[in-house]
């Protein structure tokens, strides 16, 4: 095959998600530029094909189809929200494409065509809760989230997990708010109340996107400091913080697999490149960007290994591929299409960065199916031959229908 290798970039550049996704588009473009500067891939140039699905979920599917069917891209990097991934999923499966999905998500999914380079719940939520429980001594929990699948699932998993750990039901408060919720007065006041029951209390926040700014502001104004009731967030990264006056937030926590403040040479190099690429001295990096960095390098390595960009070959080649991550360790693509990641807990600082306060001793492999949900306890995913199954039921010893069908279709 001649001509450039096409890399599809499927991130919203307008609409509500543009805030988060624009930087990811730039990241992929930067990585491509760098790869080209290093001589391309298999002797061919890489070319980014950027489209704007405009934060519109059906449009994601349409654009994915456009990328795969019209533009015939060899791989897609894209999506942020779960719903956009769910929307795209049937398309990549049908047209047998490759999708690298860089954001932490609720798990409960493993597709043959999708590689999940963000964290699964066991790579973010559970370690964070462990930290709070063991290191801070938290006994009472507020699980606050935006009302959609990721928080719902995460909270469900956490609830089960906490109860397994002996936390009483009345020590868990669950609260959901709509997207973009901006009036937190009542909820923060409730949290304050909940926290005055005599047990150390913490908030586990899966509050999404824009809603965080007013939330943290309200926390600050109602005088809830991190020493009283710490908040550990799973969706607040450097980029979100860059829009917040972080003064009052110092000490609140976030759990990620990467922080910009991580002290490693790979990271510093990446930051330097990023700042140079964007031309903005204040530009920040964040976890999903690292996920793209890892995903991109894994794909490159897999293509080199397979010596072709052919999707099936790459799919087979990529399992087991190991590349360095930005925190000084390595990430490996697991057979369930999730990767290994370290889990870091960081505290917000007044400069909008996180200071790492805790870290898992070794990397954690992502679980496609949670051990804490009844429906998925017995499921595993393994895309190697001969199993080739995204939801193999170990108890019944058979592959779930849909995946079985796909496997058949693939042969």
């Amino acid at each position: 095959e001649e001509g450039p290798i096409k890399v599809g970039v499927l991130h919203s550049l307008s609409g509500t998600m543009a805030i988060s996704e624009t930087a990811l588009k730039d990241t992929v473009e930067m990585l491509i530029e760098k790869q080209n500067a290093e001589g391309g891939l298999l002797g061919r140039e890489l070319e980014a094909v950027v489209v704007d699905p405009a934060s519109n979920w059906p449009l994601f599917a349409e654009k994915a189809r456009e990328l795969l069917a019209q533009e015939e891209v060899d791989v897609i990097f894209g999506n942020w929200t779960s719903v956009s991934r769910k929307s795209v999923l049937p398309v990549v499966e049908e047209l047998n494409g490759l999708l690298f999905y860089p954001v932490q998500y609720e798990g409960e999914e493993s597709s043959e065509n999708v590689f999940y380079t963000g964290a699964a719940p066991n790579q973010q939520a559970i370690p964070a809760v462990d930290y709070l429980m063991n290191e801070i001594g938290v006994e009472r929990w507020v699980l606050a989230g935006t009302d959609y699948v990721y928080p719902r699932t995460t909270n469900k998993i956490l609830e089960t997990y906490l109860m397994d750990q002996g936390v009483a039901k009345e020590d868990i408060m669950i609260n959901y708010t709509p997207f973009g919720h901006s009036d937190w007065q009542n909820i923060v006041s409730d949290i304050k109340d909940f926290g005055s029951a005599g047990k150390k209390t913490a908030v586990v926040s899966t509050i999404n996107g824009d809603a965080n700014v007013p939330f943290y502001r309200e926390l600050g104004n109602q005088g809830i400091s991190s020493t009283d009731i710490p908040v550990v967030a799973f969706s607040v990264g450097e980029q979100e913080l860059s829009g917040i006056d972080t003064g009052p937030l110092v000490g609140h926590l976030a759990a990620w697999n990467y922080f910009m403040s991580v002290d490693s040479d790979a990271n510093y190099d990446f930051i330097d490149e990023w700042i140079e690429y964007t031309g903005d001295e204040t530009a920040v990096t964040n976890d999903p960007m690292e996920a793209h960095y890892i995903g991109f390098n894994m794909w490159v390595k897999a293509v080199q290994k397979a010596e072709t960009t052919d999707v099936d070959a790459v799919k087979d080649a990529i399992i087991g591929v190991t590349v360095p991550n930005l925190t000084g360790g390595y990430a490996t693509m697991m057979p369930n299409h999730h990767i290994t990641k370290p889990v870091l807990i960081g505290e917000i600082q007044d400069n909008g960065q996180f200071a790492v306060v805790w870290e898992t001793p070794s990397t954690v492999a992502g679980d496609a199916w949670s051990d804490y949900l009844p429906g998925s306890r017995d499921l595993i995913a393994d895309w190697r031959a001969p199993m080739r199954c995204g939801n193999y039921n170990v108890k019944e010893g058979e592959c779930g229908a849909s995946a079985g069908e796909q496997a058949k279709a693939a042969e």
Partner: protein
Amino acid sequence: MSIPRWLTFFLMVLLMTTAGTVSAQQQDQTPEALLEQLADASPRDTEAAIKAIATSGHERARAWLEAYGNNRISQVEATGRIVIVLNNRGRDWEVADALTGENLGEMSRRDLDRIAINNAVRRQLAGVLAMLDLFAKDVAVREAAALDLLGKVDDAIVEEVTARIEEEPDAGVRNRLEEALAIYQVEEQGSLDAIEVLSGSLHPRARAALNSAVASEDPARKAAAEQALASIQQKLRLNNAAETLYFGLSLGSVLVLAAIGLAITFGVMGVINMAHGELIMLGAYTTWGMQQLLPGQPGLALILSIPAGFLVAALAGIAIERSVIQFLKGRPLETLLATFGVSLILQQLVRTVISPLNRTVVTPEWMSGSLVINDALSLTLNRMYVIGFALLVFTALMLIMRRTRLGLEVRAVTQNRAMARSMGIKATRVDIMTFALGSGVAGLAGVALSQLTNVGPNLGQNYIIDSFMVVVFGGVGNLWGTLVAGLTLGTINQLLEPWAGAVLAKIIVLVFIILFIQKRPKGLFPQKGRAAEG
């Protein structure tokens, strides 16, 4: 700075309480060694290291601890020198030598190792610092320190706190200290007297302590604690009601602010201005811009943003009016289409020119925190200002519409343009001025909102629907209606929220609007009579 006498005293106290952990030898440590110890300490040892610094009597000890608490202590990788980070933004940080305070200029972040701190340590640190503050001259500082100590008293400092109660001249501070002590006593010793002390307290920590006492085995303690809690609960209910009301008013005033400009451009002029949200956004970005222009003076910048935000949005409004709306006279519905286009353009403009990311708008000192009525009821200051601001803007607007010719002329022009012109009213000028006024007020709303929520390209989108809802609910063309509607909807929402949850509360409010309009098809304050039917 000489070592105050109290510090020696404090030192002794600490020595006594932590006897054995801090050996005499550590006393003589050089400052370098003290910092070294902090830098090298494993999580378990940090406590000792902090105490060592606190008791060292070094003149910079406090500065170190504060810097440490703020995550500002780092070690230069190559030399092992301990530095205090003065500015930690960007890739190169400005640092000063911890020992001498000498400014060492900028240093790449790569070359620095941060000395880690976490919340647990920070808590201890806060206790230690608060103890230090208890000796301050300023009563306010002492009071704050005492308040800070609530729930932070532990075995290490209990004696000292007890001692301070004796010495403390100020009654308020003394009460606080007693409360702090009582919390400790309730939690650790289950003292009945202490429960008594706490029974009037509204502070959440006190309640926490009492709650823990309720869980106790001892029936007497349990009963006493329950009784204390019950009396607190009583007071709390009242306070909660007041708080909810305040929340309602505050949400309401946000709605009013967002909608009031629209009440002019849409309500009075009849332009379905879909770009209203983006005009609000411009006001918010003006605030951000002002703060960028005046770094370090967020308060001044905010105040200057009020005229600036008005001006920027008003100019944008004039531009919209001149370039689009003037061509749509007599076609009000089409203004929807055009201004929708304008709104898309403005949004993307901000994304392209400034950034798709949210911008940081700093809340000035005097606007952050809250006005403490009592321990259970404190009114957040930023929202209080917003309520006041909303009322101010409303009054000013009301005066303009009532007292100046503009108010009369704009109504005449919208009701019958040709006739108004036949009466000699300069309709074009009236249009420009009114639209500018409405837009400017939207800008003011933006300035206020920048203190409450995100300043980003989506800001406007989040308020446009609510704004229309408020204007229409109040009755189109009626400014009072907008005020009442905004406050009503805000309050209803906040009243519902505690029991219905945020989502359901919002749904109920929307359904309420739908049903209410059935009852009053022309809003809260309808135009009655023949005139309205036309």
